[in-house]
């Protein structure tokens, strides 16, 4: 299908009939069934669904944290569905920024040390200034030496967003970014995500927070491992 397509026409993400099976024999469970999805460059997509719907599996496959049992995944025109673990690590490092529900900051490191982490895995030399710049982008330029424990939940999630941003990735993948935050902090985080999207970043938010939908261009629903409806925002 990619034949004859120009890079402009090729979406950033193209999932073709992705299936993911867990277990074997009678105990085999399909977390995703023949799942297809396209995400254009610059889009902000919300993926919603109840627990156990397969949205975590979808997030793992989108984030190159796991490989599908069958089907194809093209990321920016490159087939990443059959890459080795080390090659996937390079894709994650260079092209994807993650934001997690639990923030996943290392408690012993200061804010900027946390933000520089992905840069360590690509031998970037200018790490400190890049990290500080990313922290300034999320409005934490005055908190660079703070430890995670000295920051509020919202601030911690902003540090995590800065960490996702610091490598200038093609995609920011946020898994329940507001799941551990109160309403005010959620709004803070969502407005940052919207701003980043307005600056041209492609963002996928996996959530069951209905507050996310209004900022998304498009919301897709996952149920029992299948895409159930497409609704234009």
């Amino acid at each position: 299908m990619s034949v004859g397509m120009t890079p402009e026409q090729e979406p950033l993400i193209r999932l073709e009939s992705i299936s993911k099976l867990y277990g074997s024999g009678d105990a085999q469970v399909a977390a995703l069934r023949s799942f297809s999805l396209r995400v254009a460059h610059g889009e902000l997509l919300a993926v919603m669904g109840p627990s156990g719907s397969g949205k975590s599996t979808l997030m793992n496959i989108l984030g190159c944290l796991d490989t599908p049992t069958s089907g194809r995944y093209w990321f920016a025109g490159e087939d990443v569905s059959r890459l080795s673990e080390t090659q996937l690590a390079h894709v994650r490092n260079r092209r994807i920024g993650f934001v997690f529900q639990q923030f996943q900051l290392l408690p012993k490191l200061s804010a900027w040390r946390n933000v520089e982490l992905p840069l360590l895995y690509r031998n970037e030399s200018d790490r400190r200034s890049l990290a500080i710049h990313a922290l300034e982008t999320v409005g934490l330029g005055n908190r660079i030496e703070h430890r995670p424990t000295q920051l509020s939940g919202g601030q911690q999630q902003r540090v995590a967003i800065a960490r996702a941003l610091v490598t200038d990735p093609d995609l920011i993948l946020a898994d329940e970014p507001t799941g551990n935050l109160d309403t005010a902090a959620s709004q803070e985080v969502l407005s940052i995500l919207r701003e980043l999207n307005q600056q041209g970043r492609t963002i996928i938010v996996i959530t069951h927070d209905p507050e996310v939908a209004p900022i998304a261009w498009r919301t897709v629903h996952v149920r029992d491992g299948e895409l159930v409806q497409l609704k234009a925002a």
Partner: protein
Amino acid sequence: MSILHTIETGLRSLFGHRLRSVLTTLGILFGVAAVIATVGIGQASSDSVTARITSLGTNLLTVSPGSTVSGGVSGGGASANSLTMRDVAGLADRQNAPDIAAVAPVSQGRVSLVSTSSNWSTTLSGSTPDWLIANARSMGSGTFITSADVSTSAQVIVLAATTASNLGAGVGDLITVKQIPFQVIGVLASTGSQGFGNQDDLAVVPLTTAQDELIGGVGSVQRILLSATSSANLGTAYAEANQILLQTHGITNPSQADFSITSQTQVLSTAQAVTQTLTILLASVAAISLLVGGIGVMNIMLVSVTERTSEIGLRKALGATPGDLFRQFVIEAGALTAVGGLLGVATGLAAGYIVPRTANIAVTITPAPVAIAVAVAVVVGLVFGVYPALRAARLAPIEALRAQ
């Protein structure tokens, strides 16, 4: 990730768990120190045994009564009184034994020497002037016993250096042995030997005097010391002595001999084998403690991997390759053992300095066991670090991220 950052990350995590790192390091420290100290003690005792035996002279042959094995039944060494002055005379015959330079019959016993100022218990040998040559000794002062002293059973005594100084006696002084007065006519030059079988703690009187008045056993001798004209002639001297003794004892079948002749070389190799076995035994125990230390490193690394599962997952999500994580954990294990190994060397060397000064046990530290102990420690650390590191590298990022 560059190796420098990997090292930095590894060290940062070790410093983050200071107490745990120190305790793990201690296991390796004591293992390495124990190896160095025990091998050092073994080496020292081996050296001292070797020195003691070679100081007796490599030309020396000792004739003892009683065959070590007679007709398949061992009578026990020196169990018979089969050596006589007739044997001594035969061995001293330069015609039949041209390669034997000195023949010294010896009768030995433990006695108490009493001087005007103190008393001292030591080994007393009754012998002849050849004792000095056979044992390759020299006089520090005075003279050794003479043939005339032997034929007249003179009440004269020669003391070794330590014995003389412990008694506070010198040439010309009178000391008593079993209430009999003896005049000190000479003091032997010191050999510098120490401990068990000290060659500087003994006394020598004429053989006849010893047999008549102190030890008894007139007519037979306990041992005969022979010295070959040179160490190259030791073999022929041995053959000559064997031939003469078989003849004087009227024995036709050499396997029935009622005496045995041993050279210092034989004694030396036996003694070395014994001390080597002891050294290996001690070092094995120490090596086991090093192994246990290594298992401690593995244990703590496994704990560390389990405890940091979510950190590992995060690092994987951020782009750490399995290789990056493997290297990070191997470096952590390697650093723990390397530091433990170096501190162990310091402790081992300190023990090598302190033990001889406090416990009177000699320790000889040579570079080889030190190098081997450190190398083994590092290898142990890396080997035992590999499994936890593989566990870290193989963790699936999603599973790891979910662990909280």
